[in-house]
């Protein structure tokens, strides 16, 4: 266990190092000189040079990279070339928003996926199972922004039940926070739920075919109880993996929903950063997203090992 953990942690750290280098290198070829952009179009060459010095963009790339990565370790993402704002807190703020959104979306997804997937697996090759499987197929095929647009059109605009978008931090007003979270979480969660339902379905199907489930029934458990007591935990192992991967994908994929619902999350920050050529900001956001993906994968790996005694011992 410890060996495995050490190895995985090392791999994570090396990956993070490589990822940061890739991100940095890739974005440093971005067209548009940050100093020039920051100064606007009227800047004199001298002013640009001065600005470059202030930003440190006149230094060799390696030095800039080391400086940047050094800052990251202490949570210092630098200062935006464009707005002069400190990037770190900005990213944290936005990340919190995205995490709320994605977390709520995932919750919706799970609430949909687990019963839907399980039912359609249990009713495999029977009408209900086919219908449910069909429903999740259709769900997967719908882009989440379309779901968002339709939800807004219906719930917010036509029925005026909920706001059409926007964001209120939970600390400021919990009720309003929830009201504004609900629709985007649904848009994200319904579609994601359909995706997850498929995984749940196939893992439950696999588990249903397992010999030990037959053993459980031979012991006198009804099929439903056998599934609950012996099957679901086994099915959970692969689903957790998918969940982690999907969570990471969702963190990035939420950008479209954030756009539709005007939610100030990490995704919109990224798009704004790109539009403004705010290099350091983009770098920071991309790095945080990549970090999130890598760390999530790492956690999933660890969790996976913890869930399955076979792997625990093999470790």
């Amino acid at each position, binding site marked *: 266990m410890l060996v495995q953990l050490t190895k995985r942690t090392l791999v994570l750290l090396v990956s993070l190092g490589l990822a940061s280098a890739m991100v940095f290198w890739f974005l440093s070829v971005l067209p548009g000189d940050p100093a020039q952009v920051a100064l606007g179009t009227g800047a004199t060459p001298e*002013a640009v040079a001065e600005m470059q010095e202030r930003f440190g963009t006149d230094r060799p790339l390696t030095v800039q990279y080391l400086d940047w990565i050094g800052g990251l370790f202490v949570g210092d993402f630098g200062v935006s070339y464009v707005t002069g704002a400190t990037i770190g807190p900005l990213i944290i703020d936005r990340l919190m928003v995205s995490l709320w959104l994605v977390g709520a979306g995932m919750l919706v997804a799970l609430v949909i996926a687990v019963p839907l997937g399980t039912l359609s697996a249990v009713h495999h090759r029977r009408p209900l199972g086919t219908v449910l499987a069909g429903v999740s197929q259709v769900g997967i095929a719908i882009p989440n922004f379309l779901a968002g647009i339709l939800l807004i059109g219906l719930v917010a605009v036509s029925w005026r039940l909920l706001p059409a978008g926007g964001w209120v931090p939970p600390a400021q007003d919990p009720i309003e926070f929830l009201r504004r979270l609900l629709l985007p979480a649904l848009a994200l969660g319904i579609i994601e739920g359909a995706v997850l339902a498929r995984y749940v379905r196939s893992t439950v199907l696999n588990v249903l075919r397992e010999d030990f489930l037959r053993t459980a029934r031979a012991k006198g458990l009804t099929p439903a109880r056998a599934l609950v007591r012996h099957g679901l935990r086994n099915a959970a192992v692969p689903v957790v993996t998918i969940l982690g991967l999907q969570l990471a994908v969702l963190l990035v994929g939420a950008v479209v929903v954030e756009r539709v619902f005007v939610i100030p999350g990490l995704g919109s920050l990224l798009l704004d950063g790109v539009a403004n050529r705010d290099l350091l900001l983009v770098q920071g956001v991309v790095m945080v997203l990549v970090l999130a993906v890598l760390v999530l994968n790492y956690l999933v790996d660890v969790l996976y090992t913890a869930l399955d005694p076979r792997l625990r011992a093999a470790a």
Partner: protein
Amino acid sequence: DAGDTVDPDDTADPADDVDEEPDDDPADDTDDVDEDEADDNGADVAGLSIGFAAEPASLDFSTDDGAAIPEALLVNVYEPLVKIDQDGEIVPVLAESYEVSDDNTVYDFFLEEGVTFSNGDPFDAEAVAFSIERVQEDWTIGLASQMDIVEDVEVVDDLHARVTLAEPSNNWLFSMTTRIGAMFSPDGVDGLDEEAIGTGPYLVDDFARGDRIDLVSNEDYWGEAPEFDDVSLRYFADPNALNNAMLADDIDLIGTVQAPEGLSQFEDDDRFEIIEGTSEGQVVLSFNHDREVFEDQRVRQAIRQAIDRESVIETSWGGYGELIGSMVPPTDPWYEDLTDVHPYDPQAAEALLEEAGAADLELDFRVPNLPYAVNAAQTVQSQLAAVGIDAEIDLLEFPAVWLDEVFTEGDYDMSVINHVEPRDIAQYGNPDFYWAYDNPEVQDLLAEADRGDEETFEENYREVARIISEDAASDWLFLAPNLMVANERVGGVPENNVGEMFDLTVLERT
């Protein structure tokens, strides 16, 4: 003389503004941030919520030339000495009155008494001198160069400041109505991007990046208290989201309709009033005069004649907007109807192209990725295709890439952008401007205008407008309308978009 032509640097701003230009009207909406937003019931609450499209990147308009900052803060938080009113007249604000010398070089400002900054410092002539000199020394945005003409600021007494210009300028006082005329406290400029200290009726309560700015009324305001105590300025990167928020009663006023096509939703709903005024924004189809193809006036004229501008208005701005024949909005005194110069006539256009030997023209049509520009560009492209011109659309991110590649580098054949700066016709006198229009006659007329008296100013501007129209220096697709939607609770919404600010003080409860 008319005012100085806008410095090339300044024009950066107009372009910048472009993305948010449709923000014409101030609208207010109550929104009490600390309580339930109560959007569904705005009337009961002191707050007001106004939706805008483009968000300020910081609170410091001295270093960031985004137009969203003065839109939110000028007049409301930072007050200038003078401002532009709805009729385009310059009226005093912090200057109780002012006098201009006969030669248009010496300006005497007599200040309001008892004005304090929100940090408690008094506002006096020292502050005026400080603010003006700071523009010259510390501001990094292009617009600051308009202050170069100031030779001296003299503190005559506490409430009397005298500004001396190096040369006469018709434009200087006008530019003092923009952000460069905002008054700062000498002790209040250290954290401008986070904290705004001005003399205005509102204070910044909270700036949530990517989302909103919350304003609260200034208890110690020297003037008349504004009608709404709490105003939330909310920013919607997506224009449809803005409309939807309005439809869902989440905001009280759309400061800038960016998705005019969706306006029909408001038309049939008596909860809403659509306010249509004019702006200073000319949507210009710009030609790069540095490119060989555009040296030939016939080619330029052919393009103008190939375009059915009515249909451009329809497709790009939902039919709202006005035809103009040159770079002058009808609100300017020197406006003249030039819409008949080079009217839509595709046959004539084709013939002209033939004559100029420019059939099968291929153009690099580099367009900022702003909704109206993209829409206009598609229409233009299709119409040009009809006369045999192949205009390849290349979308550039706005602001960064478009500013960099088109505006600064001049690497384009043709582009579309809304020029929202007032009096920006002067850019036709600036050969270094991105369209590189180099016409000595125009340049002379404009220079003369700034130096001369008011009559010369108007005369010359009218002349320039005609010349560039006939010369087809650009094509002026239409004048962007100032479109707003207000719900029935908000009144006094100013129709026209004048100046750089969204004046919250004129809003009323209904």
